[in-house]
């Protein structure tokens, strides 16, 4: 078997594993958003009249907290669809 083919296979497999590992970063935003939502629910329970404001601010904060998860998603997408490492191997 051709040696570049084997190298290519190893790089592709490692990239797929790397994409999977990158998505572990999804734990962080999950925990963060959970805390944010629980505090928002407490606030609504204490003051039901400010439900609209709390919900809007919470959604904004959640979306901003999500960005670390989105970075890992972008890395995973790059590793799967636009792998820069495979092109390093000649052939």
């Amino acid at each position, binding site marked *: 078997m051709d040696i570049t083919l084997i190298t290519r296979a190893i790089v592709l497999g490692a990239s797929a594993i790397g994409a999977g590992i990158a998505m572990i970063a999804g734990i962080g935003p999950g925990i963060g958003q959970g805390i944010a939502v629980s505090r928002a629910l407490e606030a609504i329970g204490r003051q039901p009249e400010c439900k609209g404001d709390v919900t809007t601010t919470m*959604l904004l904060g959640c*979306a*901003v907290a*999500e*960005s670390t998860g*989105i*970075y890992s998603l*972008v890395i995973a*997408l790059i590793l799967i*669809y636009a792998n820069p490492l495979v092109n390093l191997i000649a052939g």
Partner: protein
Amino acid sequence: MNIQGPEIYYRLPGGIHITETIVNMWILMAVITAVCAYLGHGLKDKPDSRRQVIAEFIVSKLYNMVSEVMGKKNLNFAPYIGTLITLSAFGSLCALIGMRPITADLSVTLAWAIVTFVMVQTFRIKKRGIGKYLKSFFEPTPVIAPLNIISEIANPVSMAFRHFGNIASGVVITSLIYMALAGLSSMVIKIIPIPVLQLGIPAFLSIYFDLFTGVLQAYIFCMLTMVFVAGATE
């Protein structure tokens, strides 16, 4: 929908590609312009048509939002914010009728984020003068200057990636589940050659990924733009 990126319809000389995103964006811009022209023509002092009431409702909501976030003196930003939120929301919502969302392309969101970045820097220079602007990077100590510059550049990059990542992940996940349902239905129901399971089930995913995420991300992108620009003009 193709999950590997927008299709290239035509290659112009000079490396410019006419992609699905560009075509969809021109279609959307034509539709939005037509709707705005229909809503906005022949306005009267006392509204007597339903058309004008809708137009006034949208415009007053927009101006309220801008004045709440940016303050009364920055109301002249409202048309830009309105354009941005409309194109962004429609660009994500067009996935509902089967078009590829334009915001699932990094070039679109990165272009919008760069516009915001240029606006912020311009207003900061205008407000403080070029000397104070350059000096603000070396505060509190000159050692920290590279970190200040990185944090300035990280803002538009994170805005662009957030919007792109949310919409593109929706496209990828919906397409994967769609393909999986086709395989599952050909496995389970072998007699009928139609993928029966594809009916209906992806619609529930679409409610979250297209409706909720699309509108929320448009709102957040505009909110961040307003906050950054308002901070620069203070």
